[in-house]
């Protein structure tokens, strides 16, 4: 297992993979930017009214307030010139001001990014602990009770909406046991329940992926050979099993990130976790398009970055990928 093989080809292929990711990032930015631009323009209903409602609340939103907003934000310019302007702003990473709070979008996102990152990383870590472990164990005895019960449990977790799962966890751990805080961001333990909610949803799938990988490894020729060589089950798993199981599990993680990012949006709202998902929901409610654009951009870029990390890890684990 000498990773420092120092193949020039390996490094080159890694770089080309990263280059692809860079291109993906740029495309994501372009796509998000353009979509958001058209959102401002083509949504039925009056943008100015929506923004005024977001700012002043439904008790105070009136036509006068909306007119003031319209004037302030210049919401009545011709399409193409506005689009060009939009793209150039995006190129210069000028994400504008939030139309509801008036603060620069970059600042708002910077504040919110850290909580979301914390939550996502912890959720991924927990799901990695829970999912593949159970999956491996289940895969060792396919058809056994562990396998069947994890199958049922995983289907249940996939059929349950994340807000309901979060609610149940709060009921158990916060209200009944008083062990963890129910919501908010002030306590060191506040991160546990939201992270657990996300992790369980992710683990439901990764456990099955690990289980299937384990089954195919177990029934493979090289594994059988390892056992005939005289290795114990433990040794065979360690030396031959884990790496082969790890590859599909980790690469599936890349797909799971989509669910993570969408899950983050719901979980942050229900746990009042002040992250980007929470901000995206509020921006959508208030039709605050610069914020929608900024948060969608960050979420998309996070996805790309995580995927790049996974590419790197996969190529480290799997020598076949390097060439």
């Amino acid at each position, binding site marked *: 297992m000498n990773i420092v093989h120092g193949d020039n080809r390996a490094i080159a292929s890694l770089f080309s993979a990263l280059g692809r990711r860079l291109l993906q990032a740029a495309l994501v930015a372009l796509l998000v930017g353009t979509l958001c631009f058209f959102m401002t323009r083509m949504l039925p209903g009056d943008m100015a009214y929506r923004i005024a409602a977001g700012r002043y609340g439904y008790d105070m939103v009136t036509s006068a307030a909306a007119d003031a907003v319209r004037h302030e934000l210049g919401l009545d310019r011709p399409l193409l010139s506005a689009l060009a302007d939009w793209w150039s702003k995006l190129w210069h990473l000028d994400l504008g001001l939030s139309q509801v709070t008036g603060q620069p979008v970059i600042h708002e996102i910077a504040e919110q990014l850290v909580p979301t990152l914390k939550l996502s990383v912890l959720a991924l870590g927990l799901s990695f602990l829970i999912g593949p472990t159970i999956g491996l164990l289940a895969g060792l005895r*396919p058809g056994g009770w562990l396998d069947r019960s994890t*199958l049922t449990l995983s289907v249940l977790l996939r*059929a349950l909406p994340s807000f309901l799962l979060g609610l149940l966890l709060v009921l158990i751990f916060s209200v009944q046991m008083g062990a963890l805080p129910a919501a908010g961001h002030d306590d060191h333990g506040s991160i546990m329940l939201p992270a657990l909610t996300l992790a369980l949803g992710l683990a439901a799938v990764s456990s099955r992926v690990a289980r299937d990988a384990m*089954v195919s490894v177990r029934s493979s020729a090289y594994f059988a050979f390892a*056992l*005939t060589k005289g290795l114990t089950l433990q040794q065979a798993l360690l030396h031959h099993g884990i790496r082969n199981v790890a590859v599909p599990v980790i690469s599936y993680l890349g797909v799971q990130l989509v669910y993570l990012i969408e899950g983050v949006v719901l979980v942050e709202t229900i746990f009042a976790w002040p992250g980007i998902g929470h901000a995206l929901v509020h921006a959508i409610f208030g039709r605050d398009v610069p914020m929608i654009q900024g948060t969608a951009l960050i979420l998309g870029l996070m996805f790309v970055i995580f995927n790049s990390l996974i590419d790197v890890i996969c190529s480290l684990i799997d020598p076949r990928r390097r060439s």
Partner: protein
Amino acid sequence: MTAYTDSSAPLPSSGRRFSLVSRRGAGIVLLTLIAVFAIFGPWLIAIDPARQELSRFLESPSWAQPLGMDQLGRSMLARLAHATRLSLSMAVLGVLSAAIPGTLIGVAAAWRGGWIERVLTALADAVLALPGLLLVLLLAAFAPGQFWPLYVGISLALWVEYFRVVRAASHILLASPQVEASRLLGFNTIYLLRRHLLPVLLPRIFTLMRFGFAGAVLAMSALGFVGVGLQPPTPELGVMMIELLPYYSEAPWLIGAPVLVLFMTLLGLVLLAREEEAA
């Protein structure tokens, strides 16, 4: 020491053959139950899902109303039947409308290669990174108060998965000796597709479709969570989950019902899978 020589044979464990048969059988039974409920349920139950009797709000289950009444005094059983019908059929549509184009484009990309493939892959990756919620919201905003744009949005978000999986698998397949041989022998594209590609691709596509299905219904509940897609009084499984959330403590059977339906559908689909497909 037992030696395992046949890599494709399932591992022996107690009652292996029996469990394989009953697993698929259980799946079929579950799906049939759900299908009957969805197709014939509304007609059999014959209660208007919109008819409300406010004085009977949150009534407990009884013989006449096995699932009780919801927060507006409407028959929960009737609403569930109509919702199952609507949600599952739209989820099937949504998933199919993601799977078919995604597969075709994936095969085409792998077949053609070159810059077409690169462009499509880049586009697919970019769409994948886009938060699906955003896409759906944009479409929902164009036609407020209707369901179809939501499902179109969900399809648009889902097709990428099929594209990626199919493209990766097609690459390997198209480079395989079988396909090469068929090509040299002069068989046309349709034959190659039918004979070589589909048998390998279909199991993976089905796996994606299984969970895409559940995902489509849950996406509706996520949208309801943000206040989009609520279209009273039409019952829809995902929207019902969010509408009934406040009553989780007073009437837990109400929110349990749509979750149970989704769970049973998904379990049935998963159990139906053969060993090689499993996920």
